């Protein structure tokens, strides 16, 4: 995610800590940072959430209007997910068209919502082939201290869970957006032969490989994305999945609250 330079001393320091089962901010290897979610943060959005995962700060807004469906999917609503890695959030983010990092992040979050049928797009049809609900999910990174994947997906789920289909568009009352599933992603980073969960910025910078696993309320796997140039063994993948499932349960409770 980041091409910031990191001092060799710092790199060695983090590796040493992780080798001995500790981390720079005092967490255990499987321990995630404090997660706070403020729903309905933005009154101009139909749904929104501000998520702080440690010092990583993400604001997600959902705008909902009506429009025409795509010709090839007349019985489906429209969902678009965008990520802006604005230069406010990090000295390495630049303004301009979205770069590959932002596009990967947006696509991973989008898939998580679409493929898990978190929001059943077929329920978003008003008149088949003519009029459907159109959802824009905009993910705004405000402060980047690592693990944007999880912060963005928690924010998206939280924003969707409090979103309203605006009645003024159809001449009825506001309806809650139906959210059917609660897939929760958990990201792990591999540093040498150790795996840490919810990596903060410095860990992410020196990580060899990254794996994001989203599990649902039944413990089933709903999405995965591996990143960076290193690799995981099969056992490591299994370990990340089972840990992600356990950690995900706790997170789900916070998002649903």
């Amino acid at each position: 995610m980041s091409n910031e330079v990191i001092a060799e001393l710092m790199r060695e320091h983090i590796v040493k800590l992780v080798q001995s089962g500790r981390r720079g901010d005092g967490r255990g290897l499987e321990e995630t940072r404090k997660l706070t979610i403020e729903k309905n943060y933005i009154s101009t959005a139909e749904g929104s959430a501000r998520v702080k995962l440690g010092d990583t700060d993400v604001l997600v807004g959902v705008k909902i209007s009506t429009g025409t469906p795509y010709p090839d999917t007349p019985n489906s609503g429209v969902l678009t997910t965008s990520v802006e890695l604005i230069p406010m959030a990090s000295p390495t983010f630049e303004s301009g068209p979205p770069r590959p990092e932002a596009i990967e992040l947006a696509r991973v979050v989008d898939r998580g919502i679409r493929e898990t049928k978190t929001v059943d797009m077929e329920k978003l049809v008003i008149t088949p082939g003519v009029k459907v609900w159109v959802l824009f999910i905009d993910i705004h990174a405000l402060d980047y201290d690592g693990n944007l994947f999880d912060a963005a997906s928690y924010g998206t789920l939280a924003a969707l869970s409090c979103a309203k289909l605006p009645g003024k568009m159809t001449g009825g009352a506001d309806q809650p957006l139906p959210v059917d599933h609660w897939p929760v992603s958990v990201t792990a980073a591999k540093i040498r032969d150790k795996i840490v969960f919810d990596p903060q910025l410095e860990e992410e910078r020196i990580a060899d490989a990254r794996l994001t696993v989203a599990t649902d309320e039944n413990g089933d796997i709903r999405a995965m994305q591996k990143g960076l140039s290193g690799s995981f063994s099969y056992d490591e993948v299994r370990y990340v999945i089972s840990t992600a499932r356990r950690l995900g349960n706790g997170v789900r409770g916070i998002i649903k609250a």
Partner: protein
Amino acid sequence: MEDIEHIGKKIQLVDGNGRRLDGRALDELRPIKIEAGVLKRADGSAYVEWGGNRVLAAVYGPREAHPRHLQHPSRALVQCRYNMAPFSVSDRKRPGPDRRSVEISKVTSEAFSAVVFTEQFPRTSVDIFIEVLQADAGTRCAGITAASVALADAGIPMRDLVVSCASGKIAGQVALDLDKEEDNFGDADCPMAIVPRTGEVVLLQMDGHLTEDEFDRAMKFSMKAGMQIYELQKDALRRRYAVRALAEEPADTGVTQ
């Protein structure tokens, strides 16, 4: 930015007692809340709530100016990027800069160039990022007010803080700090930014229709309101550093920077 659905309705913007739709007097500001030092990565930051506006400002620098051909051999550049989040307005705004935000960014950069001691940092750039999270008219003034606190929080040497406020004309009367409804149906809007210590005007824009007398009145309203905003800014900075002095900083594990 306008709410099309409202057009056509007759709205009485000022009642017989000189009260406005939200109960304010003609020379009264909306409630303003300022907080300094809200982001981790940025060198300085501030958050402003101003009526229904929610604005974040971050400052990075002085740092190497990019692109390099912009570097000035004897002074720093002050570069501002004003951006609206897609969900900050009622009809989703397409991400990225449009002509309006490019213009606002330019006049804001120029306003701050007037107060920053740029000659102390040749070849560098002081980058100001203003993000409008939720818009309710007067976002540039809220943004400048926030950016000014963010610059101070970043320790950028300045001649003074900059305060900003708009006055306009609604229902034939000069009024301070128009909200969205008043801005849409009003007759004039005149945002300005002032250096409180000297009274210098560093930003001035106007659209609509004002007589010379009305402009004088608008200017007086904004000048007076500016002094109130100045106090709120200084108070936010005092709170930021008072908290730091009292609370014991968490033990430094050596990984945070």
